[in-house]
């Protein structure tokens, strides 16, 4: 697979992010140059505090860098104002968060519809639940679902809007092995079937085997980029 033939979805140029904590400066990102291409499945690895979430948030338009540039297709996200970033997220990005962030007062189905109502070309909420295998739990509230089920609803919510990019921050962080695999399979399936460009943050190096590319962050910089020659299915992963 050659990235030359594919459209570049994300491109970052000398991306830095510095947090000012009183006297102390925390340099979360220190010059990240990166490209993600169409329908690629990328895994971001790295120690805690290495800047993975910061990078993902900037790509998703949730946060802005201190310096450097981020391009989504031809759009310079760094030049966009808050309204344009909101528009960008609304139309193009699907998020899966480590702690699910479902709305507790809405059922699984309603949580998804909350998002599809404002999306450009959504798929049906029930179909999205079908993909993550939770069709029959549609009318359950988050409190009535297990952690893994909640995470799958969160994935269904992200994919139901039919986004161009799917950004997942430690989607399996809070899950056991088995549930983790179910969740990852769901993500991989979206990537495969819908061609959604997907970036997944994880601490678990073995998940990397599923990816097209594995990008390792260390101390706010890219430490290594590896192409995966043979992708493995989630069920075959060695944890």
């Amino acid at each position, binding site marked *: 697979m050659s990235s030359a033939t594919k459209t570049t979805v994300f491109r970052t140029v000398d991306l830095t992010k510095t947090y000012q904590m009183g006297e102390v400066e925390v340099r979360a990102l220190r010059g990240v140059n990166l490209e993600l291409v169409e329908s690629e499945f990328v895994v971001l690895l790295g120690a805690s505090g290495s800047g993975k979430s910061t990078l993902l948030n900037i790509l998703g338009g949730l946060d802005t860098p201190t310096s450097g540039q981020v391009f989504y297709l031809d759009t310079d996200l760094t030049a966009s104002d808050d309204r344009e970033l909101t528009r960008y997220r609304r139309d193009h990005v699907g998020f899966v968060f480590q702690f699910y962030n479902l709305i507790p007062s809405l059922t699984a189905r309603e949580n998804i519809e909350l998002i599809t109502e404002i999306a450009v070309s959504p798929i049906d909420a029930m179909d999205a639940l079908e993909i993550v295998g939770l069709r029959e739990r549609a009318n359950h509230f988050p*409190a009535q679902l297990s952690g893994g089920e909640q995470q799958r609803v969160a994935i269904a919510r992200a994919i139901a809007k039919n986004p161009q990019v799917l950004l997942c921050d430690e989607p399996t962080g809070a899950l056991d092995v088995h549930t983790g695999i179910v969740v990852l399979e769901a993500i991989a399936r979206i990537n495969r079937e819908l061609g959604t460009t997907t970036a997944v943050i994880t601490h678990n190096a073995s998940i990397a085997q599923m990816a097209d590319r594995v990008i390792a962050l260390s101390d706010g910089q890219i430490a290594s980029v590896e192409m995966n020659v043979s992708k493995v299915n989630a069920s075959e992963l060695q944890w």
Partner: protein
Amino acid sequence: MLKLDRKLLRDLVHLRGQAAAIGLVIAAGVATFVMSMCAYKSLEAARARFYSEYLFADVFSSTGRSPNAIIPRLKEITGVAAVDTRLVYDVLLDVPGMSEPATARLISIPDSGQSRLNQVYIARGRMLDPLRTGEVVVSEVFADAHGFVPGDHVRAIINGKIQELSIVGIALSPEYVIQVQPGSILPDDKRFGIFWVSENDLEAAFDMAGAFNSASLRLAYGNQVEETVEVLDRLLKPFGSVGAYTRDEQISHQYLSDELTQLRGMAVLAPAIFLGVAAFLLNIAISRIITQQREQIAALKAFGYSNFEIGAHYFNLVLVITMIGTVVGILVGFVLGDSMVGAYAAFYKFPSLDFTPDWFAVAIAFLMTTVASVVGTFFAVRSAVLLPPAEAMRPEPPPSYQPSLIERLLPRKTLSPEVRMVVRNITRRPVKASFSVLGISMAVAVMILGNFSLDAMNYMMYFQFRLAQRQDLSVTFVEPATESVMYEVQNLDGVLASETIRSVPTRIRFQNRSRRVGVMGVEPDAKLFRLLDADENPVRVPDFGIMLNTKLAKLLGVRIGDLVIVEVLEDKRPTLTMKVAALVEEYSGINAYMNKNRLHEALLESKVASGAFLKVDPNRIDTVFAELERRPGVGSVSIKDAAMKSFEKTVAENLMVMRSFIIVFAGVIAIGVVYNTARISLSERSRDLATMRVVGFTNGEVSIVLLGEIAAFTIAAIPLGWLIGYVLAGAVTAGLDTDNYRIPLVIARGTFVLASLVVIAATVMSAWVVQRRVTELDLIGVLKTRE
């Protein structure tokens, strides 16, 4: 329905307790506002209609015998549209079975069958037949108080002769919408009535053919009142005018105006207090929800919900609560307004007094509550709007606690861990804690506000009728009585002691201000009718100089030592320049006093008396009264106890309804504030509390953490509430300060205690409701999920 709106509904259901408490506070404020405004509108409309349809006059003047020949001169005064002249006499009635005296004011009705001004509205029966003698039309309140109906007879002592009058009609007049006898503070339906009789009858009885003793003018435009008063005074001066006055000094009009002013005041004060409290409650509730929903907000933003949508979402939540409260308040306000207007109908007599909904007030109510709740929650909602989504993804850092000053001052180990948690929770957020304290103290303050009026009234009664006036009976004479008449009165069987007074109508001027005032000459060493200062000490009557009551001094801008000009409006009409020698405290009327002997000298007269105060053997009051009533020179007799009782009854009836409202409203505020504070503490602490339960603390110990805070707030709030209540009561007394009466700022200890008890009860109730939730804490659930 949009899913975001569904979330809103479910959040609302989740918050129902708090939402109901807040909605109730809003409803209470709106209800009071709408009630006052509607009552205002109804009363004002009824008044305007009555005044214009029954030609209420603009200027009034009482005189001695004035010849009808002067009438054309009155009509020529510029700006005068109509003139009415008549005979007016106050006489005593002889009502069977009534030991207390009743006074009737006889007013003449001309042959035409209707007065030119201040016309009579016949409610029942018919108008007088001017050609028949002995017919009378009686004012409605008096007739009702005595159960008189057309066809009944009543006996009056007219010019010393008992005369039987036949009641043919029951009537109302724009001049006597409320019937207050001059010198009284409140109406006394049983003891003061208006009787309309034919001009011929009155002329004959008082030998007044071709003359009048009362003139009323109606002006073409309302702007020349002052000039008209001057001209009228000049014209009628030779005939013993005691000074013309305008509607502003007309008693019934004054009472109505005062009532309207009070309604206005209530319409301002109530929403200010209630909506202030509601805005504060909304603020703490919404702040809490937004903190709680931090991560939900982040997720919504991550998925592209705009800042505007997020802001609107929370404002909608606020507005739904507000609108429900407002609508309920408006409906309750209509009901209360309707019953208030109904209560007015017993007091203020109009041909028709109907409840009129004030739609403008309804619109204002919506506007006010919307503004109050948006302003109250603006910063909380803004924080949701501005919440950076990337940051909100990260769990909130644990709050930073510090050992508080209190803990550091106390030796270690004196405080149990639970108490220490309470202290730290409070000291960590001092602003929030002070707002909660302020909110609860508002409840205390409103309670005090609602109850102090009764304390003030009681004090007024005590001051006026126990400390100052110690007579049993007071008598006024039709004409100033000579020493021999007084001698007779003083020696009636049963009279133990007596004092006489001489009063003259005057106009007192100081610089460019002036007032019509009765100056009373009092005996220098009076024991029965005493003048007191604000500290309840008797004021010695000075040999020279004049004494003003504090209200009059304030109106004129006079201080002790200033020189005032006293124009006597009787007889030889001397003009005196007098030094203000002392100020005396009185809670009703505007009065001036001086040494009686000096007054006689100034008037160049012998020792006559306009009235007398008598101390009477308690067993013989009735016989003394009956004896006095029979004497031709006696104009009116009043029994102090009877006056006090009827005053107390009227006050009690009026205040009781008001008080019960206010107690309910204060309870609403107390429960609203306490319940909200407790509920929010519970939701903020539920994780900590569940954790404590999990590691083995008992329900009781856990409750201390939760309820200790509320208890501390309530304890702090009570004294603060006393203070705020005192200040608000001061504002109310200032607002109710009228020429007719002042309300002293007196708050009984019992009122403070009651206010505290009601708030403590509300606290205990709210705490109990919230405490039950502690036992229901979902230990597993709380620990399983974040927030």
